[in-house]
């Protein structure tokens, strides 16, 4: 209540990791790279978290859980929700809306059988990709 009404909520320029000092081109390229990189990774992380959780979780819980890993969530929390919905549309998650005592009803997500099967394959694909990218970055030809 004490907060003055902020007209703009612009968190857009501060995506993690912070752009290093340099030209605007470099910062822009990092933003673009992060955006492209995150599209698949977020789905993978979400599905993995849901498969581990073993119980239905709602969006806020999912965001908070993910904050606890590594150095924290590399994307904005708000971008998780559309990914959850698209995973559900793809049949990997299912959801159920349950009323809550305070505030609006919450949408609880849980992983489907297809989702469990998918995560195994995604994981293999991720490990292969990661090893490949790592060795290219380090210049090892294996």
């Amino acid at each position, binding site marked *: *209540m004490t*907060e003055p*009404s*902020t*007209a*703009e*909520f*612009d*968190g*857009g320029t*501060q995506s993690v990791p912070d752009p290093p000092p340099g030209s605007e081109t470099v910062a822009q390229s990092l933003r673009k790279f992060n955006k492209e990189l995150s*599209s698949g990774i977020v789905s993978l992380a979400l599905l993995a978290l849901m498969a581990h959780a073993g119980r239905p979780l*709602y*969006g*806020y819980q999912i*965001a908070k859980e993910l904050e606890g890993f590594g150095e924290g969530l590399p994307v*904005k*929390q*708000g*971008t998780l*929700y*559309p*990914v959850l*919905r*698209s995973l*559900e*549309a*793809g*049949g990997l998650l299912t959801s159920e*809306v349950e009323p809550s005592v*305070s*505030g*609006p*009803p*919450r*949408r609880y997500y849980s992983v489907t059988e297809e989702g469990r099967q998918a995560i195994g394959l995604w994981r293999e694909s991720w490990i292969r990709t990661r090893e490949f990218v790592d060795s290219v970055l380090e210049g090892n030809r294996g």
Partner: protein
Amino acid sequence: MDKDMEAYLRQLQDAMTSAGADTALVQDALYDAEEHFQVEMAVGGRFADVAQAYGSPEEVAAAYLGTAPVHETAVRPLNSGGAPMQGHSGGRPDATPAQVSYPVGVQTGMIVATAGGPQAARGVLKDIFGVFADPRVWTSLMYMIVSLGLGVLYFTVVVTGLSTAGGMMVLIVGIPLLLLVLGMVRVLALFEGRVVEVLLSTRMPRRLRTVPPSIGFFQRIWFWLKDGRTWLSMLYMVAMLPLGVVYFTVAVTGLSTSLALITAPLWWWFGWADHTFIVNGEVHNWWFPGWSIPFAVIAGCLLLIGFMHLVKWIGRGHALFAKAMRYG
């Protein structure tokens, strides 16, 4: 704090609407953000920080718009628009952003994926006969039939409810009665939304608009009263009676007339094609002559095709109308 949240939600809505997002997708984004913020607020914290972690309205809008068009083809009707050329595009969604819609069928478990129809049917033929293969036309027909009953129910609730509450307003009972009517209207509007979504294949709101939890009894009534959607819903419910009468009449007469004509050979064969009229006390007997039977079948087929197209357009038109009245 609520003010900040409302401001954020409005900005998110504007960002998505100006990017041409479907109203249903905008609704989803608003539900998600509201759910998240309410939990954060309950935990305690500055809204500015919460919004910073959630992402700017523009970022969030972009995230929804980036993930929305999956399965878009599944909900597209067989003959979108009249141009035969469009039939050859292989079900590709139009590129116009205004057309981006949300995967209805996938979400509701409805089977709409067959709307693509047989690939062999092409051009004009597909435009004419495709209606029979389009499940949305059959569900629209079902909607037209149930709309009479629904219209009577809605009309009765709104008209008797409002007039009773209005009449009792001199006494104090009027206020709780009005509250009851408002509550019923909101629940019925949600119910009608579910019916429209399933039968007319358009996305409708899935839950009631949340009232801020902290407000009191009279503020709650005031919140509902000043919400334009409450009044639009009532208007829709009143309009459903005449619309339901028209839809039902068109559905029943169109279907029975065309089917009777198509099956004319059967009636003729069994000798049921005679008609007895009594005009001014005189009995007239009239037989369908044999040569007229093939014409009756042809007329029946043409009538049925025309009727199915009419059903398709009524279904689409009503879906647009219902959507406009709910999201207003």
